[in-house]
């Protein structure tokens, strides 16, 4: 179990809902991954009966999961705050995945706008999941303004590059042993998820790696196994790498032939 803002969830696999070949495949992938939290967004609705939002919302509700609305696409604290308020009104949850993009090419979060938005939203009763870079000082500021979960990227969104800076991720883990840490964005393969879970991260959030896989349902299952393997490995206590060999077979009792 992992706890986010006093809410316990069984799964350490948070999944995005965009880019799937069909709603049915999204639904099957969420089930195959045994996901408890799905991220959703808010977009302009189309007038006149072609209301895509309705069907999508029904599908999410039928899955019986926790909904984590996001502020994707916002480039300022002001826009992100308004989007968060609209999401709370619609989804009836204080949870918000706070995204404030600072660079359009890398989709790197804007740390300054992020802290500003997080401070106002936390003061307004939101439970903020900030999508952030892996910067230690930024993490400290976000905790100071009231965030109780941190979600550092490990590589740019949708890049599938996997963890680019393990040292920074390790630093965050060691500085904040009691804060739920979720790697959000940049994971491409199940082994990437295993790697960050082996560092002691509490969960991962991903979307593209599953949605754009050849078989999204099988990939969701693979990520589930990867996440569980990494978590169990972390808890089991792993060996640190050594520079020289250490024989695994006992030397005592070895025959001497010459």
């Amino acid at each position, binding site marked *: 179990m992992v706890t986010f803002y006093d809410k316990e969830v069984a799964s350490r696999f948070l999944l*995005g*809902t*965009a*880019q*799937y070949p069909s709603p049915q495949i*999204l639904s099957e992938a969420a089930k195959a991954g045994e996901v408890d939290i799905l*991220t*959703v*967004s*808010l*977009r*302009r*609705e189309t*007038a*006149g*009966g072609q*209301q*895509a*939002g*309705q069907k*999508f*919302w029904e599908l*999410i509700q039928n899955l019986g999961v926790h909904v984590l*609305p*996001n502020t*994707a696409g916002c480039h300022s604290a*002001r826009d992100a705050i*308004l989007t968060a*308020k*609209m*999401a709370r*009104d*619609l*989804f009836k949850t204080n949870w918000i995945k706070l995204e404030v993009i600072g660079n359009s090419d890398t989709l790197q979060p804007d740390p300054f706008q992020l802290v500003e938005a997080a401070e106002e939203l936390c003061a307004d009763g939101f439970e903020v999941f900030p999508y952030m870079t892996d910067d230690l000082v930024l993490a400290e500021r976000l905790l100071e303004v009231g965030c109780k979960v941190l979600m550092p990227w490990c590589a740019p*969104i949708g890049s599938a590059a996997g963890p680019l800076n393990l040292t920074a991720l390790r630093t965050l883990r060691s500085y904040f042993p009691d804060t739920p840490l979720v790697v959000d964005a940049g994971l491409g393969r199940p082994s990437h998820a295993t790697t960050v879970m082996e560092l002691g991260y509490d969960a991962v959030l*991903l*979307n*593209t790696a599953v949605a754009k896989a050849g078989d999204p349902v099988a990939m969701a299952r693979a990520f589930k196994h990867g996440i569980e393997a990494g978590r169990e490995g972390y808890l089991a206590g792993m060996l640190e790498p050594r520079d020289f060999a250490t024989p695994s077979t006992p030397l005592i009792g070895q025959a001497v032939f010459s």
Partner: protein
Amino acid sequence: MNLTVNGEEKAVSAATLADLLPELEFEGDWLATAVNSELIAADEREAFQLSEGDKVEILAPMQGG
């Protein structure tokens, strides 16, 4: 009255935000609304009087990562 709804110019007869939604064929309880960059919660739409030139945003759940 002329409004901007989701970025498009609209001439409408509705006086309140609650009346605007059905007039423009937005239906259901899965909508979120803002006017002039301020949230208008679902339970405030009935009382919210629209004004000439208001910028209305009507959002719905959508796929996101």
